Structure formats: C-alpha cells, structure tokens
C-alpha cells in the first residue's frame, strides 16, 4: 500500500509539486548548466572536427568520424558510470548532444542486463533510441517524398 502511494506521487503530482515549489531561479540555473555543459560537449565535437579537417579529410568523412568518436565517448563514459552523474548536473545539456543518444542506449541496457543478452541488453538498448530512430527516419522519408513531388 505504502509503496503504491509513493509511486503514484512520483509521477504527475510530484512534477506539479516541484513546479509549484521551485522558484524561477532554479529553472534559470538548470538552463545555464545545460547551456554550459551542452556547449562544451559541442566544443569537444568541434575540436575533433577541426583536427580531422586540418588533416585534409573530406567534409562528410569528418562529420562521420566525429559522430563515431562522440558516440563512443558517450557510451564509454556511461559504462564508467560518469555520464549519468553528469546528467544529474547538466540535464538537457547532456541529453540533447549525440553523446546523450549513446547514453540513452547504454544506460538502460546495463540496468536490465540481468534480463539476459537478448531481451535485456539487446532490447533495452532501444528504449529511447528506438523512438528516436522511428520518428527521425520516418520524418526523413516523408520530407524526401515531398521533396521528390515538388522537384521532379
């Protein structure tokens, strides 16, 4: 009984409660943290980008390599239990960059490893990444079809 009440409270009511109680300055502080951390993660991406560009690589190759490295770092830092702690501080600053996408894959997969390598790791990897791929790829197909109809 007690457990159930706690669970109900943690969803909608808790959010409303926090909303009511938290002063405007808290939203501002969260936003500044997200801005700084998110900005710094993008700076890391830009530095990697600059490095490969300075070695004379093609633009597409550079952006692919940058994505791969950033995703690797996001996954690795999640595995080392660092990224989730960063997330507690930075909020969207660590969720929105592509490192956060990697985090969204590794974090639930690690947590549900006890459910096995297929339905645990294999399936839980896509708890968040799945929807992102569904909506992202579907959106690109729709705009691609519209583009085709308008131009050809």
């Amino acid at each position, binding site marked *: 009984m007690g457990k159930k009440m706690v669970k109900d409270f943690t969803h909608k009511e808790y959010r409303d409660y926090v909303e009511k109680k938290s002063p405007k300055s808290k939203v501002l502080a969260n936003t500044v943290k997200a801005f700084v951390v998110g*900005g710094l993660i993008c700076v890391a*991406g*830009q530095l990697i980008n*600059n490095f490969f560009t300075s070695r004379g690589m093609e633009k597409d190759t550079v952006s692919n390599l*940058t994505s791969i490295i950033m995703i690797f770092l996001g996954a690795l830092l999640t595995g080392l239990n660092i990224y989730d702690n960063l997330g507690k501080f930075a909020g969207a600053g660590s969720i929105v960059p592509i490192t956060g996408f990697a985090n969204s894959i590794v974090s639930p997969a690690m947590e549900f490893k006890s459910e096995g390598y297929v339905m645990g790791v294999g399936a839980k*990897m896509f708890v968040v990444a799945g*929807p992102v791929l569904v909506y992202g790829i579907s*959106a*690109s197909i729709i705009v691609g079809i519209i583009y*085709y109809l308008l131009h050809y």
Partner: protein
Amino acid sequence: MMFMKVLYAFLVGGIICAIGQVLIDKTKLTPARILVLFVTTGAVLGALGIYEKIADFGGAGATIPLTGFGYTLTRGAFRDVDQYGLLGAFTGGVRAAAAGIAAAIFFGYLVSVASKSKAKR
C-alpha cells in the same frame, strides 16, 4: 578562425541544449520525448533549408545535438532523391546517418556488455 568556430559551436550547441532544458522544466516532456521532438524538428528544419544555415554558422554546435541527427537524415534523403528518384527518400536518410546509427548500436552493445550498473533504485 578556428577559435571562432569553436566559440560558435559552444554558443549554438549551448542554446540548443538550453532550449531542451527549458522544455523539460516548463512542460511535462520526458527526456525521451525531448529527443524525439528534437530529431523530428531537425529533420523538418533541414527540409526547410533553415538548419543548413544554423549548421554553417554553428558547426559541431549544430551537428552534435540530436537536431543535427534529424538534419543529417533529411539531407541524405534529399541527396539520394536527387540521385535515385523516389527510392532515394527511403535510402538516403539511413545511408547518411549510417555511421552514427551503426556506431551507436555497436559501441552501445559492447559497453553495455562490458560494464556493470552501479545498483541504483
């Protein structure tokens, strides 16, 4: 010049993440919904030619956030439509984002298998 690029990446990337944070704090959107919203927004802004301008200015500040993933998908779809016609709408997005998707699955799996979750909850 390189320094300015880094500065713009910081500003643009920071602003995109700040928008995400405001949405989390001010609405009931969960992080998963924010990510879906951002990737879709990036795809649409990419289709409208707006995101290209943001990316030209912000560099990695525009391409590293998940909106950039949507933009990559759309750009790939357009590129393949130019080359292969209607079929390109289906091949282009995933082709352009292949490196990121494959890396996320591969490294995500390896790290998940290799690491232990610090028992939370």
